[in-house]
Structure formats: structure tokens, C-alpha cells
């Protein structure tokens, strides 16, 4: 009985030592410290629609689809696992993990980010080639190196079949000339 009382008192001591610890959240903010991974934020103006993030994402949150002259890059963040794989994959640093976690909503559609990026087309036949931004990015990256001739960089604006056809035509022409 006596031992019981002692242990009871000890328990009470453990409890009361701490005092009241309840945070005043949400009336006072309690942000996460360090590099907390909150809702991914997309800087739309930097995205080139390459799809590296879509390949990296384990929850397959990000989808790409070419419709009506645009590439639709869609982030369905409802099922995001906040792993930051997309951020690490993005070549343009367009994705960052914001510290935002107060994301409750009544509709899952509120968590969708969609970007429509203009498509680039084959100079010859008009088939879609990817986004215009990606094209420009590759072209400028290549021309910066100074190792590639201008027409080769320009040649990127053609789809594979057209390139082949052009190459073939050139070859045939050359043959004819040679003949």
C-alpha cells in the first residue's frame, strides 16, 4: 500500500513537472524547421515539359499529354508522397518543396496544378516534337558549346521521319549528281 502511494506520487511528479505544453496552433503558427518537404511548388515559367519529374515520381503524380497544340503537364498532388524526387530530377529547378502543409480542402481538385506548354512542330511535316521551350533550351545549350554547326542545331526542329527522308533525299541527290 505504502509503495503504491509512493509510485503514484512519482507518477504525478513526472506528469506535473512538464506543466502544460499545448501549443496554441492554429492561432499561433508552428512552422516546420529545417528543410521540411511540404507541398511541391512549380514555377511554371521555368518548366520545359521534359517529363524528368514524371519519370522520377514514385507515386506517379505527374502526367504528360499532348493535346490541342499544348503539352499538358498535370500534377495531381492529392496523392503526392512529398519525397522530393521530382525536385531532384528537374533539370530546370522549376520544382521546389514549399514549407506549406496547411493544405486541407473539400475538393481533391484543389490540389491539381496543370501547365499547358506550347508544342514545337516539325518544320516539314508539322508533327509535334515536344515543347517549344525544351527545343529552345536544347538549341541554346548546344549552340553555347560552339561545337555544333548552326544547321545541325536548326535540324533539331525536324521529326525523325522527316530527317531520314531529308537525309535520303540528299543522298539520292548526291548519287544523282555523282552519276
Amino acid at each position, binding site marked *: 500500500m505504502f509503495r503504491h502511494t509512493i509510485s*503514484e506520487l512519482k507518477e*504525478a511528479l513526472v*506528469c*506535473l513537472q512538464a*506543466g*502544460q505544453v*499545448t501549443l496554441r496552433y492554429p492561432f499561433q503558427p508552428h512552422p516546420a524547421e529545417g528543410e521540411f518537404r511540404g507541398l511541391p511548388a512549380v514555377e511554371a515559367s521555368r518548366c520545359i515539359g521534359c517529363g524528368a519529374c514524371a519519370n522520377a515520381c514514385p507515386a506517379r503524380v505527374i502526367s504528360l499529354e499532348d493535346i490541342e497544340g499544348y503539352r499538358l503537364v498535370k500534377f495531381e498532388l492529392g496523392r503526392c508522397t512529398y519525397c522530393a524526387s521530382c525536385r531532384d530530377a528537374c533539370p530546370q529547378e522549376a520544382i521546389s518543396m514549399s514549407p506549406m502543409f496547411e493544405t486541407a480542402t473539400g475538393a481533391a481538385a484543389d490540389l491539381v496544378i496543370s501547365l499547358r506548354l506550347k508544342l514545337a512542330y516539325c518544320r516539314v511535316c508539322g508533327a509535334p516534337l515536344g515543347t517549344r521551350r525544351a527545343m529552345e533550351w536544347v538549341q541554346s545549350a548546344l549552340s553555347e558549346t560552339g561545337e555544333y554547326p548552326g544547321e545541325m542545331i536548326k535540324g533539331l526542329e525536324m521529326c525523325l521521319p522527316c530527317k531520314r527522308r531529308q537525309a535520303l533525299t540528299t543522298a539520292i541527290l548526291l548519287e544523282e549528281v555523282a552519276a
Partner: protein
Amino acid sequence: MTLDKLGLHIFSTLVFPGFFFTAMVGLFLTWVDRKVTAVVQSRMGPPWFQPYADIGKLLGKQMLIPRGSRRVGFLLAPLIALAGSTLAAVIVFQALFDPAASFVGDIIVLVYLAALPPIALIIAGAASRSPFGAIGAGREMSMVLAYEVGFVLAITIVLIKTGSLRFSELSAYQAAHGPLLFSLSGLIALVVALFCAQAKLGYLPFDISEADTELIGGPLAEYSGSGLALFKLAVAMTFFHLPAFLVILFMGPIEPNLFSMAGFLIKLAILLFLIIIVKSTHARLRLDQALHLFWGKLAILALAGVFLALIGW
């Protein structure tokens, strides 16, 4: 009986000091309980109006009657619980506010009325026909048998000491001889009665029949809406009138003056504090352990108390 007297009776039953008054104060005490528990648990706890909002919400909600239950028993049980609590409250608080209303044997009547809510729980458990309800009802039955013995023995000690089972005479005895608590047998009776009160309230360590984490509420598992609200109200009222009853029994005379009332409140606070602290620092006992306690140690203690009272200690 004249009409205005009838009106007075109705008023005293339904409003003051009966249902409304007891319920309001009881709910407030429920908040005190939750707040003190929260403090022990290092947290902030609910705002003062919480129990009122809980009851109001429950009253506004749909009451589902589970398929396969016995409807009559299921619907009557909460009413029985509430009626028992209300009538018990009327007797206790009339003794407090209007000693003249005391009648012969009112304490015995009170003991019977106070047994109604547990019986209602047994009915509820049996009527809801879920395995949880059935086992909860069985447990409650064993518990009632166990703690009522101690409770009756404690009251027997009072009877032996004062020679009466009437509030007014009890008060007069304590005014003449000092509070019962100050005699050895009176102290034993209070301790035994406190244990029984804890069990009657269904509080830890004796919340065996409801046992949220084993029986998910036992007899109450199938109740929703107003049925649940009535049970909760009955417990809240018991939480007020049962400690008050113990104060009147053991802790000195009650006189209709301010000084005595203030004393009463302080004594009540002490008892409530004890009950709450015990509740928040114990693990739930198993049924067999609780029965051992009540039939064993406590029964022996109570019998010793009776013996001591008989030899005048």
C-alpha cells in the same frame, strides 16, 4: 394535494433542485473533471462549455436503433437511468436546501434510486444484443452485486452510529457529535463508500463494464443521439449528487446558512478532487480483480467498520 403544491413538486423534480439544476451543475463538474485530467496530462483541455455542447449535439442527432435489438428495453433504459438519477438528486438536494422535506428512511430510498442507473445499463446492454453489450451487461451485474455490498455496509455503519436513516436526524447527530468522519468507523465507512462511488460512477479503475478499449463502451456501444445523451446526463448528475450525498453522510452537519453552504462546497470539492485523481492515475482493473477487491479487502474493511461502530468507536 392542492394544485400549487403539485406544481411545486413538479418544479422541484424538474427544475430545482431536481433535473435541470443537477444536470447543469453535473455537466459543469464533468468539465472540471476533464480539465483536471487534462492538467495531469500536461495539456490544455476543453473549454468550460464543452459538456453542454456535447449533450446539446447528442440531443440533436439521429438515434439509431440497431437491427435485432429489443426495442422497448433499448428505448426505456436511458429513461430509467435518467429518472433514477433525477429522483436521487431531488432527495439529496432537498436534504441540503430544505431539511424540513426529509422523511423517514429517505436514505434507504436514495440508495435504491441510486441503483437504478446501473440497472438501466444492464437492461441497455442486454437489449442492444451486441456481444459487447451482452458482456458489458454481465460485467455490470457482477459489479453491482459487488459494490452495493460495500455501499450498504458503509450505510449500515452510519445507521449504527446515528441510529437513524433520515437526513435531518443525521445532520442533527453530526451537529451534536461532530462529523462521522472523525470516528474510526466513520472514516472506514467513508473510504469504503468512496471506492463504491468510483465504481458506481463507472470511473477508472472500475470502468470495467464500459471499458472503451475492450468493450468499446459495452452497454452503450450501440447507443447514439439522445439515448446516449440521457445516459451521459445520468452519469453527470450522479457525479454531482453522489459525492454530495457522501459529504452529507460523513462530513459534518448541514445547516441552511451561507457558512455551512460554503463548507459544503469545499468538502464536495475535496471529494471530487480525490475521485478525479484516482481516475486519472490508474489502469483499469480486470473484473476478477475488482471483484476480489470488493468482496475481499473492502468487505473485510467494511465489516471491521461495522464491528467498530457496534463497540462505539
